[in-house]
């Protein structure tokens, strides 16, 4: 079990710590609902140092990124971030990731902690064109400072303007006196803010400065439990729950990051294009409960007659919305917005309806 550079701070805050993706991580501090609300209303800090970072460099960098990812990285300008996935050769997804374009010959891929080893092996195997790959996962720490007040608070720690940055962009800047910090306006919560990447050696200094800068706004540390409820309210996929090695990007509603353009060839392009043209048998949908009850991962989804039509992949009470929501795969015939479906909660079939995501809409 690995620690992050921030483990001692989590323990000092009294976090409930549990193993997650090979790391000893804070699940919650004061309570999942209070932490969730903190991010929606002000700002909170997540230690996401367990995430993996791969550098792709050299003249073949773009060619490599275009081959392994589904989105079109050729449209990226320096300082732009793109959500993407690694399709596998059999119709599934190796992982979902963020692609950062530093310059024409330098890209940063940020992948899920649980998949670092699998992703690295996959990238190395696919690197037939000879891009320079480097796995920096053990050297980089990352904090996600999320919430409507996050950028305002973090502006105090750098001379570079960050409060006017567009969503899904980044800057390399000096932060708390530390040079070359990657400051990105990305996140997994739907409440705005930033994700900050830096070397492990600078972790103490940056953690302390972030909490000091945020103190006047009520900054708090946030655990992975609230990270999950925040992302679910946005309908963001969680790898391992909503997408996996056997779910295709087309089934998962990720057509918007799967670009079938002439200038881009990528792994499994032909098969996925066929799916897009001919349709898929099941689709990932968002639903909200009508009957009282809470859907959970792996609960069955059935029709009015009780026939199985799918399975819940994520579910929870949504703290901001105060209703029970979930995501899951259903047969395509039941995937239209407004469709009535039923969730098997223990021995009962509870009524739910398919809704558009995000569940939570920022005012």
């Amino acid at each position, binding site marked *: 079990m690995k620690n992050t550079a921030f483990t001692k701070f989590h323990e000092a805050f009294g976090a409930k710590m549990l193993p997650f993706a090979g790391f000893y991580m804070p699940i*919650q501090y004061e*309570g*999942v*609902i209070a932490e969730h609300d903190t991010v929606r209303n002000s700002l909170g800090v997540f230690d996401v140092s367990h995430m993996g970072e791969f550098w792709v460099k050299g003249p073949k960098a773009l060619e490599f990124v275009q081959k392994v990812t589904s989105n079109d990285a050729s449209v990226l300008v320096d300082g732009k971030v793109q959500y993407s996935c690694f399709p596998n050769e059999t119709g599934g997804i190796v992982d979902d990731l963020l692609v950062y374009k530093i310059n024409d010959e330098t890209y940063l891929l940020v992948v899920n902690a649980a998949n670092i080893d699998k992703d690295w092996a996959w990238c190395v195997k696919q690197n037939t064109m000879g891009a320079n790959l480097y796995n920096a996962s053990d050297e980089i720490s990352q904090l996600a400072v999320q919430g409507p007040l996050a950028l305002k608070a973090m502006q105090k720690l750098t001379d570079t303007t960050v409060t006017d940055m567009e969503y899904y962009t980044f800057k390399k800047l000096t932060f708390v006196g530390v040079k070359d910090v990657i400051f990105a306006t990305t996140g997994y919560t739907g409440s705005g803010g930033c994700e900050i990447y830096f070397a492990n050696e600078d972790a103490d200094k940056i953690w302390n400065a972030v909490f000091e800068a945020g103190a006047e706004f009520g900054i708090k540390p946030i655990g992975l*439990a609230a990270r*999950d*409820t925040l992302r679910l309210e946005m309908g963001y996929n969680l790898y391992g729950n909503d997408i996996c090695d056997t779910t295709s990007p087309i089934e998962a509603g990720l057509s918007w990051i799967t670009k079938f353009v002439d200038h881009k060839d990528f792994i499994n392009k032909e098969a996925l294009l066929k799916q897009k043209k001919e349709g898929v048998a099941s689709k990932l949908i968002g639903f909200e409960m009508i009957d*009282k*009850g*809470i859907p*959970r991962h792996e609960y069955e989804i059935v029709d009015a007659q009780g026939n199985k039509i799918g399975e819940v992949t994520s579910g*929870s*009470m949504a*703290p901001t919305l105060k209703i029970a929501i979930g995501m899951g795969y259903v047969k395509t015939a039941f995937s239209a917005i407004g469709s009535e479906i039923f969730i098997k909660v*223990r021995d009962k079939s509870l009524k739910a309806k398919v809704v558009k995501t995000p569940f939570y809409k920022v005012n």
Partner: protein
Amino acid sequence: MKIPENLLYTKDHEWLKVEGNEAFIGVTDFAQSELGDIVYIEVETVGETLDKEESFGTIEAVKTVSDMFMPVGGEILEFNSKLESAPETTNKDPYGEGWIVKIKISNPDEIAELLSAEKYTELVGA
């Protein structure tokens, strides 16, 4: 962590407070803390007579769900109606306002099989 002396406990983290041939049942401070924020408590067994260790309801926290089991056999007389609108009461006051059900004890001999506060403290390593 609070473990009151005057209550009896189960290994499944319920408590029992005996009052004559009736008793209140709830979940322990340890249980509510492990569950985290409780958002829904479902008890649909009012009026039924259940055996010791049968499930009498479920408790849904944000991240997890757990069954609640009868510490002793008995008839479910009442579900704490306050929990329908404010299930978080069980987080805040698990041994008081947050009690879950009131029962009529079927067989008082089963009471002797429950854990004392001291034994329960050992169990949870408090």
